[in-house]
Every structure is written in structure tokens, then in C-alpha cells.
């Protein structure tokens, strides 16, 4: 589709000072490749993409952010779950260009360096995965679930995690991990 661009991380401040994408955009982009800026895990990233490129493909194929996974590519599996402006959404049904000016957070943004997020620790402690392919999406949903306040019991957890399919069927262990973090047992990171 489009040529790949460099993967070097561009510090957010430097990119903003160059300032091509900071203000509201006027006029059409595309249909050919256009330069856009995305804020990914707190870092401003520049890339050239066609408007048809999904957020998921932009992250994986253009920026090398491969935590979000491509399962169904049609909004049915949840493997591509990321946060946009702090809300969990599906990267495969989001256009990358539509995320200019918004904050994108992937599973790579959960950990603090080598220090895992409590939910990541709880997934390890509870053996909450087998093949692991759905896990980045499960984690992004699980952390959001607790912030939304939809984890009062197992039935509610199951309902509000239903957008994340696990073909290994690790569901009981995923629920156990979520319960553990909900009850304050996930680790010491706030």
C-alpha cells in the first residue's frame, strides 16, 4: 500500500514545534499518502498514510507498535483494542487520520519501563492466557473495565469483557486476574 516510514521515535515536543499537524486541519487529505501526526503512548509520531489506513495498520505496519493484534479486522474479536482519549475502542474500525489530535494508548503504554502494570502482573499470576494473541486487547479492556466500574461480580465482568474473544477460552482465569486487581491484589503500582 504505502511506503514504510522510519520507526525512530520523535519526541513529542520537538514534533509539535515543527508544527504541521497541531492545529485543526483544513481541506482534504488523500486519497494518496499524507503526512499525519499521532500521539501514541505519550509520544508524537509522524507517519505517511493514506486516509483508508486503519489505526491498527498504522500502529503495526507504519510505526512498529505491534502490541495491538489483527484478529478479524472487522470489529468482531477485540484483539485490536486500544484506548483513544482514554476510552477503549477497536483499532481496526478506526481510521488513523481520524486520530490526529487524540491520545492513542496501546498495551505498550501500560507498563512503566520494565515494571508491569498490575493487570499485566495479575494476568501472569493467574495464567490468564494460553497462546497470548488476544492478550493485549484483553489487557486494554480489563484496565478500562475497572475504570468504568463494571466489574462488581463475575457476571458483570463477563458481560463487559464480551467484546474480547479468547479462542483458548482462558475466560475464567482472565476474570480471576480482573478480580485480583479489583480487590487490590495486582501489584503496587497505582
Amino acid at each position, binding site marked *: 500500500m504505502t511506503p514504510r516510514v522510519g520507526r525512530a521515535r520523535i519526541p513529542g515536543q520537538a514534533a509539535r514545534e515543527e508544527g504541521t499537524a497541531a492545529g485543526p486541519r483544513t481541506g*482534504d*487529505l488523500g486519497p494518496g499518502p499524507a503526512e499525519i501526526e499521532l500521539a501514541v503512548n505519550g509520544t508524537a509520531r509522524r507517519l505517511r498514510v493514506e486516509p483508508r489506513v*486503519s489505526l491498527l495498520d498504522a500502529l503495526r505496519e507504519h510505526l512498529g507498535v505491534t502490541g495491538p493484534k489483527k484478529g478479524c479486522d472487522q470489529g468482531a474479536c477485540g484483539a485490536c483494542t486500544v484506548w483513544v482519549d482514554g476510552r477503549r475502542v477497536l483499532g481496526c474500525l478506526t481510521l488513523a*487520520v*481520524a486520530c490526529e489530535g487524540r491520545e492513542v494508548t496501546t498495551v505498550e503504554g501500560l507498563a512503566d519501563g520494565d515494571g508491569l502494570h498490575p493487570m499485566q502482573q495479575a494476568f501472569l499470576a493467574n495464567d490468564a492466557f494460553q497462546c497470548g494473541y488476544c492478550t493485549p486487547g484483553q489487557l486494554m479492556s480489563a484496565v478500562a473495565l475497572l475504570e468504568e466500574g463494571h466489574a462488581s461480580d463475575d457476571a458483570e465482568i463477563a458481560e463487559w469483557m464480551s*467484546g474480547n474473544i479468547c479462542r483458548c477460552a482462558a475466560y475464567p482465569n482472565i476474570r480471576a486476574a480482573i478480580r485480583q486487581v479489583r480487590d487490590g491484589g495486582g501489584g503496587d503500582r497505582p
Partner: protein
Amino acid sequence: MRPFAYTRAADVAAAVAEVGSDPGSEYLAGGTTEVDMLRIGVARPRRVVDINDLPISGIEELPGGGVRLGGLARMSDAAAHPAVRGRFPVLAQALEKGASAQLRNMASMGGNLMQRVRCAYFRDGGAACNKRAPGSGCAALGGVDRGHAVLGTSEHCIATHPSDAAVALTALDATVHLRGRAGERSIALDDFFLLPGDTPEREHPIEHGELITAIEIPASEEARTSHYLKVRDRESYEFALASAAVALLVEDGRVARVRIGLGGVATKPWRARRAEAALAGAPAERASYERAAAEELAAAVPRRMNAFKIELARRTMVRALETTASLGARGGTG
């Protein structure tokens, strides 16, 4: 996916002008239908106009007990709003039984009304489909029709309307507010959806570029005792095989006011007016509910694999009425 251009609209007037003046432009809101349709080549615009920055995402309590949902209010925000939960529990329940948490965070209320059917033949560019390619025929007739409609069908289209929220909204007598190049107008929700007839490609009585700016729900006493029952192949994250939205007010053991919507079984969000007429003044008991449900489904047309939906819809409506009546008897608000 075919290439297309992109622009982000700064205000409602600009968005309406951009799309209204260009048959090749389409709106992009939450994208949960549109990006899917773009990817499978069913939507083929030359340009999408992103309307997510427009200031029509608010949810407003109206004096007197109604609620006005901005066209870009997200399903999750509408479902969580205290006024929606308190005044129109059937809508909050229908919203939360739709799609998944991620999709509800993305999908807008206006987009929910505009979402396209899930008929596999509509989505398959190689199949005959009068909705996608008028005059090409309907592969669902005689095809795999287990999920298809039994009410409101024609010989040209039997696709089921997939929305849950619209089923609740039709029972609540909501109004759709539109802004077009010619100005503003409003359409009753029941009139906003067209039966397929011999023009299944025409789903709404609106012009290209008319934008849903708001959905208004009028106050009603019976809506406070309302309920949404959804029956499906799996417990969550699945479209309805049959669903019923019921608002019911019982006085002295009789049905004083009732409004019913049916989902999963019809080509549009189905207002069950025959059942409502049969229930007017009737004893609030199972026999009345069964008679009303039978009345509504009398016109149903079964196909090869979906005849079960007629009985399922009857039972779904009866159970939803019983559940709603019990909410009223307890004096609860759902």
C-alpha cells in the same frame, strides 16, 4: 479497501454543505459500520467527511421529562446518562445489550439509526442484492435465511434491521432531528425507517447529506416502567434473534398505556401497533399478552429456516410484557 480522501468538518453547516453538495462524499462518525463497509467495498465514496468534532454529542434533559440525545452522543454515554436510565430504562438496557463495550464507546446514536443490515448477501459483492445493487435480485430468498425477517418483508428484500436501540426508540415515540442544505426538519422515528417494498435500497426518507443532529425522546409515564428483552444465540455480543421493548402502565389491573417495539424479526425497528391495540384496556395478565402477541405476528411470513422466529417473537413479547408488568407492580423504575 478502495482509496478515498478525508476531511474533518469544523461545524455542522460546513459538514452538511460538504456532503450535501457531493454525491461521492459520506459522513464518518463512529465508523463501526462505515469503516467495515469501506473495507468490504460495499461503501465506495470518493471522500469521507469526519464529523466527530461537531458539537452535537451532548445529552440534554428536557423540561417536562424528555431527553435530547445529540446525533454524535456515543451509545455508551447515552446508556450511562442518569436521565436515560431513570426515565427510559428500556433504552439504557437496549443500548447496553448492543455490540460490545468498545463498539459502544465508538458508535454514535445517529450512526446507530443509519447502520446497515447484517445480511451476508448484502455484504458479499458477488451475491445478488437489491439493496446493494438495485434490480440484481435477492440471494437471501431461498438462501441461508435463518437470521432474516418475518415481518415487513417483500419479494425484494428480507434483511433484518440489526439495531436494538432503535427498537426501544420506536416504542418511546422518539423524533429524529435532521439538518440538510434546505434547513432543519424532524421525522418521527417510526417514519424514519422505510419498509423495503420494491425499493430496498432506500432505507430512510432523507436526502443525501442530511445529518442527524439529535434524537428527542418525549416524556412519558409508562416509559419509567419499561424493559428490553433480547434473545440471541449467545448471551452477549450478538445480534437479536428476537427482542421486545415494552413500556407499560397498569391501572386497576388493566392495561392503561402500552407501547411495544420488536427487534430481530423485522425489516425495520418494528412498532407493534396491532398488539398495542389488542392490549388497550385489557386485563394485565398472560392471556391478554398472548392474544396480543399472536395478533401482531399474524402477518408474519416464514422462510425456509426462520419460521422459528415467529414463535420466538411471540414468547419474547409475552415475557417482556410480564416482566414489565411486575416492575410496575413493585413500583420500581427498572
